[in-house]
């Protein structure tokens, strides 16, 4: 089987799920005839028609709310945020309405909200965001953020089939930069399970999305130059978190770095630090360290963006200090 990109893997998942289940439909801005700003939904309208690939007005509240209403009636909507930055417009609908629907009203709300996320693409403050931490705080939402093409497909299929609302973050830097051959058959990646991206014994890097690749790059350099054996855990799911996988790597290497592209304060690394402290304090040989973006809006100029976002060199530097502790 031929290799396909991360972006094509998402499209393949949408296509297969829409073929499989007539209740699945897509809704979003410019997703139909135009095929979406990044062409993720390209061609879907030709196969499934405009009833199931709905070009919507510019209305994030409107389409997330409409998706919730449709989900109550037994549909499985997939909503595209043209850029995930715009999900902020639908924050009320997601956190107040969707997230609470099952708990307060026993209303099923199986829906996916997906969209291009993340930086390293010179997108500036409103086309580069990583707003995932703002949603893992809300009980009732699930959050996934794949780093590989295989997981992009497998997690999308899992998200569509899930009976809860899943926020599906797609890293736009990875859209066309990585490729993989898809596993044969009905490839579904379970939500809530992390993936060991690289085995190691000296220290662990826990991360997700595009920075998985920074971690792997750093791990190779550290092995080559320092003889360090670095383990890399790709979380894949941010809500729920895979505590067992986190415990396992922490207790194995006893030194932990948390790495994410999102800003530092209130980021997921803080939550992970607290969990590691509560669950695995006795196994730690060094303080848990964070490598993150600086706490600023993401600027546009390459020199600024590169400075603000975590780079492979940052990972290498912090890993050395962790190993030497």
């Amino acid at each position, binding site marked *: 089987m031929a290799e396909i990109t991360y972006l094509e893997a998402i499209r393949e998942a949408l296509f297969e799920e829409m073929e499989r289940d007539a209740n699945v439909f897509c809704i979003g801005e410019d997703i139909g005839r135009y095929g979406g700003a990044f062409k993720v939904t390209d061609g879907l309208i030709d196969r499934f028609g405009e009833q199931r690939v709905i070009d919507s007005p510019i209305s994030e*509240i*409107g389409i997330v709310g409409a998706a*919730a*209403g449709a989900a109550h009636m037994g549909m499985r*909507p997939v909503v595209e945020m043209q850029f995930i930055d715009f999900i902020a417009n639908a924050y009320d609908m997601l956190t*107040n309405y969707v997230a609470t629907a099952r708990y307060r009203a026993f209303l099923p709300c*199986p829906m996916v909200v997906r969209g291009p996320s993340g930086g390293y693409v010179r997108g500036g403050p409103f086309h580069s965001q990583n707003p995932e931490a703002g949603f893992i705080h809300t009980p009732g939402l699930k959050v996934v953020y794949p780093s590989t093409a295989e997981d992009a497909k497998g997690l999308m299929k899992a998200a569509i089939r899930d009976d809860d609302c899943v926020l599906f973050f797609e890293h736009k830097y990875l859209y066309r930069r990585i490729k993989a051959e898809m596993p044969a058959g009905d490839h579904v990646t379970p939500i809530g399970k992390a993936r060991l991206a690289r085995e190691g014994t000296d220290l662990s890097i826990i991360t997700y999305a595009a920075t998985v690749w920074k971690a792997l790059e750093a791990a190779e350099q550290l092995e080559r130059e320092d003889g360090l054996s670095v383990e890399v855990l790709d979380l894949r799911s941010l809500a729920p978190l895979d505590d067992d996988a986190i415990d396992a790597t922490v207790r194995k290497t006893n030194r932990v770095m948390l790495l994410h592209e999102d800003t530092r304060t209130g980021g997921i690394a803080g939550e992970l630090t607290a969990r590691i402290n509560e669950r695995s304090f006795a196994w730690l040989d060094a303080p848990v360290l964070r490598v993150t973006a600086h706490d600023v809006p993401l600027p546009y100029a390459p020199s600024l963006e590169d400075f603000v976002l975590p780079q492979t060199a940052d990972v290498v530097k912090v890993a050395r200090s962790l190993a030497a502790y």
Partner: protein
Amino acid sequence: MASRTQQKSRAARAVRSPDAPNDASRAGDALPSSELSRDKLLELYYWMRLTRTLEERLVALYRQTKVVGGLFRSLGQEADSVGSAFALERRDILSPLIRNLGSMLVKGATPVEILRQYMAKGDSPTRGRELNIHFGDTDRGFIGQISPLGDMVPVMSGVTLTFKMRGEDRVGLVYIGDGATSTGAFHEGINFAAVQRCPLVVIVENNGYAYSTPTSRQTAAKQFVDKAAGYGIPGVRADGNDVLAVYDATKPAVDRARRGEGVTLIELMTYRRKGHAEHDNQSYVPAGEIERWEKENDPITRYLARLREEFEFSESDISNVDARVRSEVDEATDIAEQSPPPEPLDALEGVYANPARATPLWYRESGGVVDKHERPEGWGVYDGSAEVEH
């Protein structure tokens, strides 16, 4: 009954829109309410009376501190809820607001559910998770609201989009207060539904106040129905305190939606005689205003007059309804008061479909202890060898 067709002057005053061929006021058509049987006419009274009596019972329970949260009244607005919900079929779905107890009762919510809900009982429709009339049942055709106002308009656009996609013969109705027409959610929801020609009726209940804010501070528009033109949909304005006028405004809009002709905006003129909630002393209301509405424009008093004079119902017809309502509310109160509070652990159930239950924090589980670290010999003991800087 002969006089029924002569009631056109009381009918909904339609605001003409280019593609509104089915306004309630179209000359020559009999009013929808003229089709209602005598049983149905009396049933409208029953629902309005039940709404008011049930709320009066809730006030008593509130004063006894048995209602643990706030209490929201629809006093003086019973006609707009009952008359509009009455225009729906059983299979249709509506989304009520806080002053639409009457709509919910028409749709099959029961007094005992309402009472248990207000008293936060474990067997209330939300098992004590939500307050007051915030609950729903899609089987009976109503979806519970949430407190952020305006959100139900997009949600109901999605419910009715589904009816359209599946070719189902069903209609949705969503209420919005005068205040919440100012939200982005209202705009996005009604616009989306209009573009998609969803089978949805949007009712703006203009009761004069959003909490303490009068409509003059809510919008510069002369009337809310004017907003319909901006969405390319027909708008209708009707007397919300005349239950038959409400029905006559709503029924054509429901029929129009059912025919696949899309969304209608209806503005119902009414008045909120109580505060936002029971605690609100209404200090912001001009003197005499509430009393004037109570005296001159109470929807139940007005409908009773028509029942007696126009439809020639006897005093015993009416007192039989009153007695039935009283006994139903009494019985429901007795049952609801016996209900137990929710079990605390139920709080962890059902946030997600999977996992179905959240894990209690370890210090809430009996016998739970944090994993203990065996300290190595001498670890953590200061031996005095290092200088501590201050």
